[in-house]
């Protein structure tokens, strides 16, 4: 577990240091619509960019305006402070508006702070729709990206290597699915914090190492008997981008809840399905990444998302859903409102919170809301039990 924890809580984790020491390149990317398999195939370490470990926002605020989500600002802050100096490249994606402006802001910051823009800096144009021409565009974009990586890093990304990469990544996907299965049982042997750390680690660790470690860890979990879920509310966390282990810790530290599921970017949101291992690998990747419409940036696909959410809630036997959104995140903020409305209709309680991204900010306020939410859920269940008892007695 420690290796995952290290990877999930440090910007420059040991496995990144080791990789660099072997003289191999590292490329950062900002959004889960970037097929990381491509880099694996090029023997480049893909690292999802994050905003943890920020202190202050003087660089972020210099370039971004005041009404922007703190996540991309934190990334810029870290870049400005040289914390991403280990990057040989960065891929910027128009995930949301805040994120896509990271392109300009980072480059402009590079004019003021020497050496903070990686030598390879690429804008990867992901469309907002997956139908016909959208998919075709995305496939072209992937091919262009591959070409550009080949040119810059002097590598050769063949279909064969891509297929191998897909297979390797799929192993991890299957393992994460196993982890999900473990957490869906009545007796959960793994805390949400640990599980999330393991998932986040997958976005920053070398994949072979990750798969091996994950496999070991999961088989050790399978031997565990001690239930962590007894007398606890089973929660799910959804909403804005998050890689904050603290958030999960805060929830579980109440002692009254266990997080059994999440649907977060950085989490398992993406890992649900496997990528097709036969046929054209680029098309298979495109179908997987663009086709699943898991993020509200894919407009008009709300119904698919709410259905997935309901299935997950059912599957993981969730008692309540924590819906968080980072301030100025319109996409998740609005979608959370719709989720809350639709879950309400089927009797699933939810809690909406708006917050700042970043370590420990507003922990007190967050704690209060979580606690009240847990009390709300137990009251509800209490009532259900009483009603059942009464019904049983009268029958």
């Amino acid at each position, binding site marked *: 577990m420690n290796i995952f924890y290290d990877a999930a809580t440090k910007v420059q984790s040991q496995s990144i240091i080791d990789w660099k020491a072997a003289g191999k390149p590292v490329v950062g990317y900002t959004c889960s619509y970037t097929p990381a398999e491509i880099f694996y195939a090029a023997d480049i370490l893909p690292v999802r960019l994050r905003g943890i470990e920020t202190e202050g926002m003087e660089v972020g605020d210099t370039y971004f305006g005041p009404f922007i989500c703190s996540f991309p600002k934190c990334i810029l802050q870290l870049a400005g402070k040289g914390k991403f100096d280990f990057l040989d490249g960065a891929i910027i994606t128009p995930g949301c508006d805040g994120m896509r402006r990271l392109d300009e802001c980072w480059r402009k910051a590079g004019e003021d702070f020497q050496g903070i823009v990686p030598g390879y800096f690429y804008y990867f144009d992901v469309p907002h729709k997956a139908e016909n021409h959208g998919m075709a565009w995305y496939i072209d974009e992937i091919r262009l990206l591959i070409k550009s990586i080949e040119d810059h890093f002097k590598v050769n990304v063949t279909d064969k290597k891509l297929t191998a990469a897909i297979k390797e990544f799929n192993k991890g996907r299957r393992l994460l699915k196993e982890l999900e299965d473990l957490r869906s049982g009545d007796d959960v042997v793994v805390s949400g914090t640990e599980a999330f750390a393991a998932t986040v680690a997958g976005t920053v660790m070398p994949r072979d190492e990750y798969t091996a470690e994950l496999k070991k860890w999961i088989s050790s979990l399978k031997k565990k008997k001690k239930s962590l879920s007894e007398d606890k509310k089973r929660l799910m966390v959804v909403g804005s981008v998050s890689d904050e282990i603290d958030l999960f810790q805060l929830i579980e530290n109440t002692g009254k809840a266990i997080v059994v599921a999440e649907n977060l970017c950085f989490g398992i949101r993406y890992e649900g399905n496997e990528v097709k291992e036969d046929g054209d690998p680029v098309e298979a990747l495109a179908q997987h990444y663009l086709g699943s419409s898991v993020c509200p940036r894919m407009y008009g696909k709300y119904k698919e998302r709410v259905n997935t959410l309901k299935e997950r809630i059912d599957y993981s036997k969730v008692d309540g859903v924590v819906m968080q959104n980072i301030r100025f995140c319109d996409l998740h903020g609005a979608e959370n409102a719709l989720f809350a409305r639709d879950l309400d209709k089927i009797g699933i309680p939810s809690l909406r919170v*708006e917050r700042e991204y970043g370590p420990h900010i*507003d922990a007190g306020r967050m704690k*209060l809301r979580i*606690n009240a939410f847990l*009390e*709300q859920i137990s*009251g509800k269940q*209490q009532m259900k039990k009483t009603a059942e008892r009464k019904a049983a007695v009268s029958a």
Partner: protein
Amino acid sequence: MKIVAGCDVGSLTSKAVIMRDGKIIGASIIRSKPRPKDSADAALESALKDAGISKDDIGYIIGTGYGRDKIGFVDEVVSEITCHGKGARWLLPSVETVIDIGGQDCKTVKIDADGQVVKFTANDKCASGTGRFLEVMAKVLGISVDDLGKLSLKAKSPITLASTCTVWAQADVIKYINSGVSIEDIGAGINTAMAARVAILVNSLKPKGDILMTGGVAKNVGVVSTLEKLLGVKIKKARKADPQIAGAIGAALLSLEKVNGKKS
């Protein structure tokens, strides 16, 4: 003899309530001290004095409020949202929606017949929808928060506060004072600004049934009456006790349930 207590340590005030057989026999509201522990001790002591009993007579105490984790003497802690729901139900049995505005934040709570929370929303974006906003403004006007509410009743043409940031709004208020606007019109403008922010939060919960306000701001008639206008419904008055102690009452009631063994 079942004597129980509830202690609500808020950011501005700390409250304690002592109950015997479901009746309040002692209560207190004090200004919070820098250390929550000291606030709790002082509030409880003052309530004990009010009830004329000693601490050993109390069977169970539940703590709540923003400083709840730091209270020395409690048996258990419960969030203030749950406590305000419970307390409100006791204050007015028909209530279904509770608006609690304290010093730190503003919450709207929907409750069922048991006083159990069904749903809630809380504002945490900015200090401008909280009691603290009113405190800051009262200080600028050189009056007490108690008097701020009444100003609305005498206002002729309330000012409009453009800024939502408490600190900027303060500057706006100073400007109005300097340009000779009457203190009534300024006060009313402040109360209205506050009510307007709260109304959005309340409406987002789709309130239904009888509405009761708890927390210190419930005593501000200006905010309450503007809120009534904005929501288009009457807000019920708590007659059984001071709405500011609703949280402490709720905590005491939960203590009672505990000693009665009603809930696990």
